């Protein structure tokens, strides 16, 4: 049996090595190409590959997030920006020797530093000796949730997650402030066309691509359903609020891509989406306050129900929901602002 496990470990190592080599090649290509559009497309492959590597390294939750964010939303946002700016890098680009030397020196120093690191996969590495054993051994009983990542994320490190959700909220707010149209910019008539231009020539719009339109009608409900599954199944398998929020937003992005931004904004009016940006965070904080009023500490879910593990379950459910709502709303909002920018 132990032979068998060692065997599998070796194979996974092999996959890991091959995928990492691919990753380096793609990164090189991303840096090399001058066409920004091609760089973004290659960045999509880069993210797919890195998510594969995360899976082989046992980080299924991380791979889940990377898959949803990197290959989907990130590509969409970069492309939307490209339509608003320029597609080509400036032609007269020169190789920067000073930059190269700085990078080589830093890299050399870092590699010298790795020589002292515990080897990959070592069981006795310092990182595995402290907090982690407690999470692994006790969290299934203490929190009652099989997915340790969820219990650490939502319960043990609830403050941390609150901070990160606030960062996402703030980022959403910043995009809103930067790209909101005031009267001045509305007067500018020379704004460039966007990814969402519902074309003046008609025949080329994706709205007229029948196959895509029918497919999207069939497909988007399934994506939304899947997002809900990810949201509420996060306690038992890979998933949770962050991933679900991104997938949920991806469904709206797909709808906007195929049916045009106006149609998408009819479904999800921007003002209402912005309410949800705040609502998710409020739900998170509200859960913390509720446990405060129930006699515990801030974000101490035990006190929320008669039984400690029930309380934990309830608390995790609510804050994951809060995270999901905020993430989805921020991404939808950001996409609307990017795609709607520059339309006359």
């Amino acid at each position, binding site marked *: 049996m132990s032979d068998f496990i060692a065997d599998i470990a070796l194979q996974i190592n092999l996959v890991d090595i091959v995928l990492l080599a691919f990753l380096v090649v793609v990164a090189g290509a991303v840096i090399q190409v001058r066409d920004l559009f091609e760089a973004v497309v290659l960045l999509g492959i880069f993210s797919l590959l890195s998510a594969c590597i995360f899976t082989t390294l046992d980080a299924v939750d991380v791979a889940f997030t990377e898959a949803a964010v990197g290959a989907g939303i990130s590509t969409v946002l970069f492309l939307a920006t490209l339509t608003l700016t320029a597609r080509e890098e400036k032609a007269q680009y020169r190789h920067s020797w000073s930059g190269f030397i700085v990078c080589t020196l830093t890299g050399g120093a870092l590699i010298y530093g790795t020589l002292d690191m515990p080897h990959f996969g070592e069981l006795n590495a310092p990182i595995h000796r402290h907090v982690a054993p407690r999470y692994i051994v006790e969290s299934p009983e203490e929190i009652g949730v099989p997915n340790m990542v969820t219990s650490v994320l939502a319960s043990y490190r609830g403050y941390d997650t609150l901070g990160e959700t606030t960062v996402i909220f703030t980022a959403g707010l910043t995009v809103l402030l930067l790209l909101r149209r005031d009267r001045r910019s509305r007067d500018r008539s020379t704004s460039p066309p966007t990814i969402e231009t519902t074309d003046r020539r008609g025949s080329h719009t994706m709205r007229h*691509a029948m196959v*895509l339109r029918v*497919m999207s009608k069939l497909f988007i409900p399934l994506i939304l359903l899947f997002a809900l599954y990810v949201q509420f199944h996060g306690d038992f398998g890979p998933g949770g609020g962050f991933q679900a929020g991104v997938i949920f937003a991806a469904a709206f992005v797909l709808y906007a891509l195929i049916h045009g931004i106006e149609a998408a904004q009819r479904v999800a009016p921007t003002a209402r989406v912005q309410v949800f940006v705040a609502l998710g965070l409020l739900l998170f904080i509200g859960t913390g306050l509720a446990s405060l009023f129930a006699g515990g500490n801030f974000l101490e879910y035990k006190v929320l129900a008669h039984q400690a593990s029930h309380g934990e379950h309830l608390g995790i459910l609510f804050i994951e929901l809060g995270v999901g709502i905020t993430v989805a709303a921020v991404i939808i909002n950001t996409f609307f602002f990017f795609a709607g920018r520059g339309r006359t």
Partner: protein
Amino acid sequence: MDTLIHLASWLCLLLGCCFCLIGGVGLLRLPDFYSRIHGGGVTDTLGAGLVISGLMLQGGLSLTTAKLAMILLFLLLTSPVATHAIARAAQHSGLKPQVTDAAA
């Protein structure tokens, strides 16, 4: 019975991989974009379908198999649509298929 299922799944996986490889080689070697689509098509439908069927036979009657069936369904829905959209976009952009001298 077990051995039979095992054998069938083995066959499916192997065939699926073969088709994937053939499609991959096609994607690389075929002369122009429109012919390369065919290479991509083989891997996306037949290759992926056979590999997933092989895995489904391994999974037996379980949630795993149900999920695999979902994946297969989604794949069969999305990849032809995506390929269609790519080809359509290429055609709209005015990309002409390469015609050999003999045909021309």
